[in-house]
Each structure stands twice: as structure tokens, then as C-alpha cells.
């Protein structure tokens, strides 16, 4: 097949060729930038938390009955709730903790390695003996907390904070306390470097100290500040009249929805002077990633519609060009060109246009990307994305040309003799 005649033919129809090239180039620029957004959003959505996300259920009890204002009543209710939740069929782990993954935040504080210069911000949550089990993670170095330890530490802390702590000469509390904590590997590395952090100490702005007794390997909970992987867990049973009590349950695989429903009914039956809110972590995560899933769906739809519009455009323009050249095609056929030669001519012509367009489109894609990144802090384009876009449009371009080109190949040589 000769390329020369095709190029010369195209030269005679510069505007139409130019339009196809411009359309495909712009399409490539848009598609690649959409794909970059999708890849970015998917990357965030598929980041592992380290927890058994699919099987975790959050349960929150918020009392309104005034009886809950009494400490003893609150403790009793908490104990009963924990027992009732543990007894539910399908439940493998239960914990009373204020930590809730994927809610887009939590609580944080600043702690300083003893002897270190600077305070480090980290997430911080109360835990009990069941928390790590309920999250589906293991303390890989050192140990977690026993039931007896949690009970004792809860009482100790409560006593300490019941009244104003007498201040020393520096204005900070005179009597310091020491607390055992479990931290994440990422925070251990940040605070103490690569060695084992067991036995190392942290301190807060009051001079109270925290001794590391355990490390969890995996922890990721996106936070407003860049402390997603840093956490400190301390032992404390958390419940109050205003804040209620929060629980995490881990269900057997596939049982989360059933466990959630059963937990709500069970706790309400146990004590109706409160509201119970249950949500599976799957729901909470879906809500957290709502914006990303909207981006993925909308950008996906834009890509499909855009490729459709462009393909239909190519079909239309090629069809016109076939109709317009009916006589020439007939003449060529009469002079001995085979059907496959005509087919090849149109396919090659469009392939040439598409290729030129895609070469220009790569530059345009980068240009658009630079614009988007500077206007809206978008994602930078990767070469892989551009390559994928090129492959997609090459295929779409060929497929769109196929139908009109086949039609052209079926033009009978007899046409050439008519209408002259």
C-alpha cells in the first residue's frame, strides 16, 4: 500500500483532516487526565487500613435517662453491654474504645520522646483488653493490655483527674504519672528510630510519662493532619453521660450486617433509656470515600461518553468522505483495485490521522495536566496513563473507521461509469 497517494489525498481536504486530528488530540488530553483522577481516587480508596474492615461493626450508645449520670450505673451498664455483645452469635471480638477507623478524624495529642527535643503529634485512643482483637490486628512486639490491668488503670486515672492536680514550681502538676502504651510501628520509627521501642519513654507537656509496652505493625487512619499512621493506645474504659459509650465488634466473615442488627436489638432490650446507633465499617468507609467514588463514577462516565462522541464523529466524517469519493472508488475498482485495497486505503488514511492526532494529543494532555495541576492541585500524569489512553483511542479510531471503510469496499465498479 502506498502512503504517498493517501497523504496527497488528505492534503486536498485539509480542513476535514484537521478537524479529526484536533478532535482526537483533545479527546486524548481529556481521557488521560480523567484516568489520572480515577487512578488517584482509586489509590486512596484501596489503601489498606491494616484492620479487618469488612467485618467490623461500630456500636454507639447515647443515654438520655438521667440514671446514667451516676458513675456506678454507667459502669454497670458498660459491663452488661460488653457481656451481651460478646454473647451475640457471630461475634468474635468486642471492645469498648473511642477509636473508629475511617471516620475522617479522631483525637490527637503531642508527645515527646524523653530526652528528645521536639513534640510529635500522634493520634491517641483509649483501649481495653479486646481492642486489638476487635480490629483484627496483633501486637507483634511486647504485649497488649489484660482485663485486670485495664480495670486498675481506669480507676487510677479517674482518681487522678477527679480533682485539680496540685501544681509544682514550674506551674505543671507536681505529681507525675506513668502510663503504659501500645504504639504503631510508624510512630515508633518516628519517635525512636529503627531499634526496638519497648521500654522507651514518651512525655507530654505536663511532664507525665508513657512507657511503650507493645507495638502494632499496621495502622492507617486518615486524619486532618499528616499523622495517619501514628497512634498511641492507652488502657481506659471510656463512658460518660454526655458522650455515651462506643464499641467495636468484629464479626465472623459475612456476618457484619446480621451482627449489627442483633447488637442494636440486644442493647435496646437491655436498657431502653438510650439510643443505639450501629453502622458497619463498610458503610462508614463508603461515606468517607463518597467524594472519591463520585469522582471515579463521573470521570468514568465522561470517558465513555467522550470516546462515544469522538467515535461517532469519526464514523460520520469517514462516511461522508466515502460518499463523496464514490466515483473515484468505482474508478479505482474498475481499473483493477481489489476490495481489500479500498478497505486498506480508508483504514490507513484514518490510522495516519489518528497517529498524528495522538502524537499531538500527548503534548496537549501534558499541557492540560499542567493547567489542571496549577488551577486545582490535581494529579500529575504518568506515562503509563498516557500510553493507555493512546492504546484506547487507537483501537476506537480503527473500529470507528471499519464500518464506513467496509461500505466503501463494497462499492461496485459499475458506479464509476454512471453519472459522468
Amino acid at each position, binding site marked *: 500500500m502506498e502512503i504517498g497517494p493517501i497523504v496527497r489525498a488528505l492534503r486536498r481536504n485539509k480542513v476535514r483532516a484537521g478537524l479529526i486530528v484536533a478532535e482526537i488530540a*483533545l479527546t486524548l488530553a481529556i481521557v488521560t487526565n480523567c484516568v489520572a483522577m480515577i487512578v488517584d481516587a482509586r489509590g486512596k480508596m484501596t489503601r489498606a487500613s491494616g484492620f479487618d474492615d469488612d467485618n467490623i461493626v461500630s456500636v454507639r450508645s447515647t443515654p438520655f435517662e438521667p440514671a446514667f449520670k451516676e458513675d456506678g450505673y454507667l459502669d454497670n451498664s458498660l459491663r452488661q453491654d460488653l457481656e451481651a455483645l460478646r454473647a451475640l452469635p457471630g461475634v468474635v471480638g468486642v471492645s469498648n474504645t473511642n477509636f473508629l477507623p475511617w471516620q475522617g478524624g479522631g483525637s490527637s495529642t503531642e508527645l515527646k520522646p524523653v530526652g528528645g527535643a521536639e513534640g510529635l503529634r500522634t493520634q491517641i485512643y483509649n483501649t481495653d483488653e479486646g481492642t486489638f482483637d476487635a480490629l483484627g490486628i496483633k501486637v507483634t512486639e511486647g504485649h497488649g493490655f489484660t482485663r485486670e490491668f485495664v480495670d486498675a488503670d481506669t480507676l487510677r486515672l479517674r482518681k487522678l483527674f477527679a480533682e485539680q492536680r496540685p501544681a509544682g514550681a514550674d506551674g505543671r502538676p507536681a505529681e507525675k504519672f506513668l502510663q503504659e502504651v501500645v504504639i504503631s510501628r510508624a510512630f515508633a520509627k518516628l519517635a525512636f528510630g529503627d531499634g526496638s521501642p519497648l521500654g522507651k519513654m514518651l512525655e507530654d507537656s505536663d511532664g507525665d510519662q508513657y512507657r511503650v509496652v507493645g507495638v502494632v505493625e499496621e495502622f492507617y487512619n486518615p486524619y486532618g493532619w499528616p499523622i495517619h499512621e501514628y497512634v498511641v493506645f492507652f488502657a481506659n474504659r471510656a463512658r460518660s453521660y454526655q458522650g455515651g459509650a462506643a464499641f467495636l465488634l468484629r464479626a465472623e466473615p459475612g456476618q457484619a450486617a446480621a451482627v449489627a442488627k442483633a447488637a442494636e436489638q440486644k442493647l435496646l432490650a437491655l436498657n431502653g433509656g438510650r439510643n443505639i446507633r450501629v453502622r458497619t465499617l463498610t458503610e462508614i468507609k463508603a461515606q468517607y470515600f463518597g*467524594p472519591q467514588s*463520585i469522582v471515579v463514577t463521573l470521570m468514568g462516565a465522561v470517558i465513555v461518553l467522550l470516546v462515544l462522541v469522538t467515535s461517532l464523529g469519526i464514523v*460520520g466524517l469517514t462516511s461522508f468522505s466515502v460518499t463523496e469519493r464514490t466515483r473515484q472508488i468505482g474508478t479505482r475498482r474498475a481499473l483493477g483495485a481489489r476490495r481489500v485495497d479500498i478497505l486498506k486505503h480508508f483504514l490507513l488514511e484514518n490510522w495516519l490521522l489518528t497517529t498524528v492526532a495522538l502524537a499531538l494529543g500527548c503534548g496537549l494532555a501534558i499541557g*492540560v495536566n499542567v493547567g489542571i495541576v496549577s488551577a*486545582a492541585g490535581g494529579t500529575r500524569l504518568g506515562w503509563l496513563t498516557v500510553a493507555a489512553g493512546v492504546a484506547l483511542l487507537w483501537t476506537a479510531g480503527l473500529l470507528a473507521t471499519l464500518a464506513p471503510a467496509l461500505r466503501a469496499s463494497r462499492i461496485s465498479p459499475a458506479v464509476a461509469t454512471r453519472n459522468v
Partner: protein
Amino acid sequence: MVPYNLRLALLSLRRNRILSAVIVGGIALGIAVSTMFSTMRHAFARDPLPHKSDRVFYVRMDSWDPLKPYPGDDPNRPPTQITYQDMVALMRSDIPARQSGMYKSNLYLFPDPAVGRPRKVMTRLCFSDFFPLFDVPFKYGSGWDKKADQGPEQVVVLDEETNDLLFGGQNSVAKTVRIEDREFKVVGVLDHWRPTVKFYDVTQSYVQPPEGMYIPFNHLRPMQIRTNGNTDGWKSPPGPGFDGFLASETSWVQMWVELPKDRVQAYKDYVDAYVIEQKKTGRFPRPLNNRVTPMMAWLKEQKTVPDEVTTMMIVSLLFLAVCALNLTGLLLSKFLARAPEIGVRRALGARRVDVFLQHVVECELVAVVGGAIGVLLSIGGLAVINKWGQTLAQRNDLFRFDGTMLAVAVGLSLLAGLVAGVYPAWRVCRTAPAIHLKLQ
């Protein structure tokens, strides 16, 4: 002339229905996508108080840790909220025309047992100026007066939804409702008020709808109402319990003022003077860094227009450009295929400008029909996205198609038709009559 051209255009569209469907469909998709994404961005970016947003200011003061700045992207930025004690001090100023410290909390509401179980309702604690400051619309009654701020009187403003729940939408002014362990008298019911961005509090998720109830700020101490918003602290409170919290350096209150145009500097000086005075007592250990930020600048700083939304709008406008290019190509081919016909018209005396106008009218007809279909499609698309809003922000009215957006859609359609149509129409009007007549 135009009606005749319109008739010609309609005839031409009917002649090849599949082709016409492809032409109109392409431009309809372009308008649908660009209108939809522009509407989404408009919802986030619009000025909620266009006639006065330049006089409404958000106040911040740097009461943070002497050792390190408030965490965030920019170390020069003071905390996003202020402490309780500083809000009390600022509220003593008589410079602002209106002012209100505020926070939100989740409080128990006890409806009539016949209506439902007790439930938590997000409640805003604020001063009487809150309602006029933010142009909050009322259906029944009004906000409370300054006297009620001081008491504080047990008065409440309900939003439309809460009033529907408690009183079936009836005028409930002067009726009482039980919140936590007290009875409150209803003084006002809000009209439908659902801004996309909760512009008066963007410290947390700013797409949440406004609160269900509003009560005077000063209930915080007698009722010991803690905030449900962010609390940022760096120093242990000076005492135990709620009073210790109120006396602490923890920042958790939002502060808004409306200033007369010529008093902005005076107010800034007032804030600075207060902080300099406080420094004498050892507070405010950081360099003087107070901010009295105009509302729209504050929203911009807090990035209330998500980057993704801006990107999607840019992408959608490029999409429209592709659709316009597509339209140009298809119309060009269609018109040129018609050249013999044009040759006859020209030979019979039609001027070039007649032929040109005939084709421009056809292009605009295509664009307007496509635009109309596109608007319907984008309204449908927004309805689907609003459904998503239910999981995302517990509301299904994030995006609304309004008059402004209709005007944008019409403008985009006409522009696309014109841009796409001028070249094909010009090209075809230059058809020389003779050559085509010879070929007949």
C-alpha cells in the same frame, strides 16, 4: 427570512434522521456534561451573602504554643477557632454592627412520645445577631433579642425539618420543647435554608446542612454543653472539669463580626490591643498574629471548593469543545454534500449571505435543540448525584439547577452552535454555482 430559514433547517434535519440524531445527540451530551459540572462547582463557589459578604469577617487570634506553630499547611496561620475566654472579651466590643461567637453540639430533644423516641439533634449555640448576620430566613416568628442572650432565656429557634417533626409544620411559636433536662420556648421557625456550603462554620465537614435547633450561647455554662466540633489544645487546662475547660487555652469557638465599612481597621486595632494587653499576663506567647478575614477569603483559605470539582469543570468544558469540533466536522460534511442543491439556489439568484444565514440558522437550531436536551440530561444527572449526597453528607439537595445555570447552559449552547457553525456555513456559501450545475 428567519422563519423561512428555520423551515429549511427543519427539513434538512428530517431528511437524514440518524445523522441528525448523532449531530444533536453529540452537542446535547456536551451541554449536559458541561452544565452539570459547572453547576456543581457553582454550588460550592457561589457567594452565599452577595450583598454583604465583604463586610462579614471571621476572627482568629494566635494563642497557640510558644514552641511551635498551629499544625497545618501554613505555619503562619493562627488556630482556626478561638478560646472561650477570648470570645467573651471580643464580644464586649461595640465596633461591630453585628457579632456572634458560636459552636455546635449534639443535644437530646424529647419529642412528644406520640411523635417519636428522644433523639440527638445538632444544635448551634450562638448570639441573637447570628440570624441577621447571616440573613437566615424565617417562616414563623424570629430570632431572640439581646436580652435573651444575657439571661440566658430558655428560647429556641427550630429549623423547618425539626418543626415538621415536632409540630407537623404548624406555626409553633410560643410552644415549648424539651431539650436535655429543660423546657425551651419556641420563638422562631426557619424557612427552608439549605446552602450547599455551611459557610458560617467550615471548621468541619462543610457540606453538612445547617443545624436543627438554635439556642442562646450562654446556656453553655448552666447546661455544661460541650462542643461537637473540633477542639484544638496545646496546654493542660488550669483546673478540672467544665470550668477548667472554659478557662483553658483550648480553641473551639468560631467568631464572626459584621463591620461597618469604615470601622474595619478600628476593629483590627481593637483585637490587637486586646492581645497586647493579654500578653502582659503571660498569655499569647507567640508573635502578634490576629486575623480579621473577609468571608469569601476565609472560605477560600479553607478550600471549600473541592479541587476535584474544579478539575471536573475544566474537563467538562474541554468535553464541550470536542463536541463542538465534532459538530463542525459533521455539519461541514453535511453542507458540502448538499453543494449541488446550493448551486441551484445560487444560480436562481440567492446571494451568498442568504446561503450563509440559512446554514448558520441550521447550526443554531441544532445547538438549541441539543442544548435543551442537554439541560434535561444535566438536571437528571444532578438528581442522581444528589442521591449520592445522602451517604456523603446526609442530605439530598447539595446541587440545584437555578436560573443562573440555565442562563449559562443557554449561553454555552448558542456559543457552541456559533463556533461550530460559522466555518461550515461560510465554506458552503462560497459554492460556485456553475460546477455543480454541470454535474447535474
